[in-house]
């Protein structure tokens, strides 16, 4: 756990919602969206949709997917895999762990 960044408390994100963590905190190229599925699990991926300038943290989160708030492309919460047009590229997924009600992010650094 010591290499993860404590970014939020689980209680900060209601089920079916997301928040964006600033890149200044994550040290990544893009902000990272923490997305909480309606089953309570938290997932993380780059916040900007791979198609247009939209924040996935503001998307609709349901049944393992987040739907972009602009043009409705869907991404798999676990893997970031794009499910349909207009986006054509997968989102970069990051590892998250929850411990004692705290969310720790393990940003995948750019290669």
């Amino acid at each position, binding site marked *: 756990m010591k290499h993860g960044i404590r970014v939020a408390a689980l209680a900060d994100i209601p*089920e*079916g919602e997301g928040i964006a963590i600033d890149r200044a905190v994550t040290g990544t190229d893009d902000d990272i969206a923490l997305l909480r599925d309606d089953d309570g699990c938290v997932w993380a991926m780059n916040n900007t949709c791979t198609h247009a300038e939209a924040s996935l943290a503001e*998307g609709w989160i349901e049944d393992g997917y987040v739907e972009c*708030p*602009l043009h*409705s492309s869907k991404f798999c919460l676990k893997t970031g895999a794009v499910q349909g*047009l*207009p986006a*054509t590229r997968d989102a970069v997924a990051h590892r998250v762990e929850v411990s004692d009600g705290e969310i720790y992010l393990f940003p995948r650094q750019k290669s």
Partner: protein
Amino acid sequence: MANSVVVVGGGIGGVSTIAALRAGGFEGDLTLVDAGPFPYDRPPLSKDYLAGNTEIKDIALQTPQWYDDQQVRLITESSAAALRTGLGAVELSDGRTVSADRVVLATGGRACVPAIPGSDSSRVHVLRSAEDADRLRAVLAPGARLLIVGAGLIGAEVASTARGLGCEVVLADPVSPPLSAAFSPDVAAWLHSMHEKLGVTTVRAAVEAFSETAGGISVTFARQNQAQTFDAALLAVGMAPETALAEAAGLRVDHGIAVDRRQVTSNPAILAVGDAATYGAEGVPVSRSEHWEAAQYDGHRAAAAILGGAAPADSAPWFWTDRHGVHVEVVGALGNADQLLQRGLVGQPPFSVFALQGGHVVGAVGVGDSTAVRAARRLIDRGVTVDPAQLCDPATDLRKLVRERSTEGK
């Protein structure tokens, strides 16, 4: 099961058909014939692409690699000349033939050119393809005088883009406000009023004639004595389905290529999707949803029909439009509601309007309010009843409401 499929037309309908065929396990030969350099996305043609913010390669619907990965034979800068389904083949414009057990027509539409005298002038534009956008872009210099005929979605988007490029824009439409049924009257009026606020001149009039002058094109409006001169005009008055191939193949055509609910035409070996196709209930054409996602869903249904699988679940129709910096989305229909409920204040984004019929949500429009529209879509699709007071209270968490109401229904 078919061994070979040829899809004619590489818009969103054609490309979605192919993607859904492969995703559904189709292992036969798959060919996509397209007139352009490669299949590209059309919504940006009136927005970022027209503005010069993106290049054609940036709006490709799929990467070149994708067609290889999906084992799709992509034939570009070409078109189908004839459908020889009796022989199991499609004849291309260059004389080649491609074998096809099934053909999917995704031929889209042409921009309507109304019978206005002088509309054949080179200063009169239409906007359907990237070439059209390039031609129009070339005249959108700062200070250029542009007349847009028709204040529908395309006309309004181009007005916004052209204004952003510094053009002097006049937007003419005999209806005021336009798109009242699509957006609901108050939202339509507010959206239309944005044009004037952003420096576009709106004129409530039809155009009677164009005539070329030395320095431009002179336009006569109905019931106005004085003609006005512009550098260019854009006709944005709707589209006509491209049905020539279908007609030549003897298919039934009625306001578009007639298809059943599975996108199959009057010839069982030929399907049609997107703007070219018209679904008819009991032989009567149903109004076509001439939008991006509707064409995508058509492609999914066509693929399911070819694969012999179950059709994907229907969802309420949805579209978006962008103008003057606001993102507008509509789901379902707002035209036949008992009740229109505002959530937030019309004119102060984010806001939305929900349309209700007998306690059920049947439509919604949102301006900068994607969550409300996505919530509405699920409420429509799941057929759940809602408390109007809860729905229009901005304090209500719509995600939570949908989740709770959906669970109760199960």
